């Protein structure tokens, strides 16, 4: 959990400033630690038992998102005009979306001993809850409702 918060904190600091200082790392890590905390809550849906080992296995499925965040931060540092490549970088999020779903399914089968069908159902529920939370944050952060109304021409 702490590593995930650190990855998000360091990545957002780099994306925002092109630098890393302790102040930026600590601020970002504390501010975005809400993400692994929410992940912990959604993990309860998946694991359904108090098991430290299972929880560690569950958090290891975040690896593809962590690597995507770090790769994005590195790209911002290296590209001369990262703003111009933003849409492309955002589109590559499809890779961790797919890889995480596959990793969660494998975790359910291998660590929780679920059948293929049960694993699929449980991952499906987990992903629905996860993206509902993401959507709720997006509504708070970008004011989705007026944008939707603009799209439908009202």
């Amino acid at each position, binding site marked *: 959990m702490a*590593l995930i918060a*650190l*990855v998000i904190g*360091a*990545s*957002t*600091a*780099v*994306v*925002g*400033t*092109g*630098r*890393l*200082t*302790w*102040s*930026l*790392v600590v*601020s*970002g890590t504390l*501010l*975005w630690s809400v993400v692994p905390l929410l992940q912990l809550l959604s993990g309860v849906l998946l694991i359904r038992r108090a098991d430290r080992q299972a929880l560690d296995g569950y958090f*290891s499925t975040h*690896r593809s998102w*962590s*690597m995507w965040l*770090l*790769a994005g*931060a*590195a790209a*911002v*540092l*290296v*590209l*001369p*005009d*990262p*703003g*111009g490549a*933003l849409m492309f*970088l955002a589109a590559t999020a499809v890779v961790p979306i797919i890889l995480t779903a596959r990793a969660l399914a494998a975790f359910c089968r291998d660590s929780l001993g679920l059948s293929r069908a049960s694993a699929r159902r449980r991952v499906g529920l987990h992903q629905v809850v996860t993206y509902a939370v993401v959507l709720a944050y997006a509504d*708070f*952060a*970008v*004011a989705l409702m*007026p*944008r939707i*109304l*603009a799209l439908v021409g*009202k």
Partner: protein
Amino acid sequence: MTVRFIAGIVFALAVMAGTLTDRPSKAGPVGTTVLAGDFHVHAAPGDGVLPVWEIQSEAARRGLDVVAITNHNQNAATRMARALGFVDPYPIVIPSQELTTSGFHMAAIGVSEMIDWRLPASAAIAAIHAQGGVAIAAHPIQKSWVDVSAAALRMLDGSEVSHPMIRGHAPLGAELLAFFQHTRTVNPDLAPIGSSDFHGATPLGLCRTYLIVDEVSRAGVLDAIRRGRTVASGPGDRLVGDDAHVEAVRAHLRRPQAPGFGYTVSTWLALGAILALGVIVVLD
């Protein structure tokens, strides 16, 4: 275990070196002067990546004297930073809102109560003025500004003419300029505004506004916008404003902002830290 440990040490050392090579904030200017501001900045929590206090220190680093935190229809980031007591007096941070509606986006600068997004443009501007704030048309291109009554245009205080979205998109730059020039025909004091619409990935203050102020304060800044005593800057060395104002500002101009973060020692230290973190994640 050993490789992870070494990667951890590399990360810690790179961040420590990044901290030591970091330049401290500058002290604020005093008296009648030219200030640099960015009036369209998104913070976390919201759709920006940095909290308000880090935006403030980044603003000082990038030669900005004032920033307005303009999250979409909410101001949780500013309220959180103030509640924690993390906001310094300088650079000036102005609590604001990017009023996001289905017909237009507007930077409501200097409002503490959020403006209702269901209001038409003229009523929204009246509500902003009632709080002592100023209203700036945010990226007023045809696609995002469809609810534009003549009354609203007459009430506006400023309009974005410099915005990062026009880099490499000359027609968008022409649209912003056309909106500004058209509005000026009915509203001669309309202030030209340059804003970075900062979320992350491009530097804060990439496009900015120079203000000719009588007083280095929030009130002085808002007054300069109301009186149209501004010059929009960027991208690059593009300046938009009245000739006399541009002339006054030119002497104070800092180097044009680069579209990226540039390549300094800090860049390579940050890259080293990010790579080390990547090794830790892979081996976790």
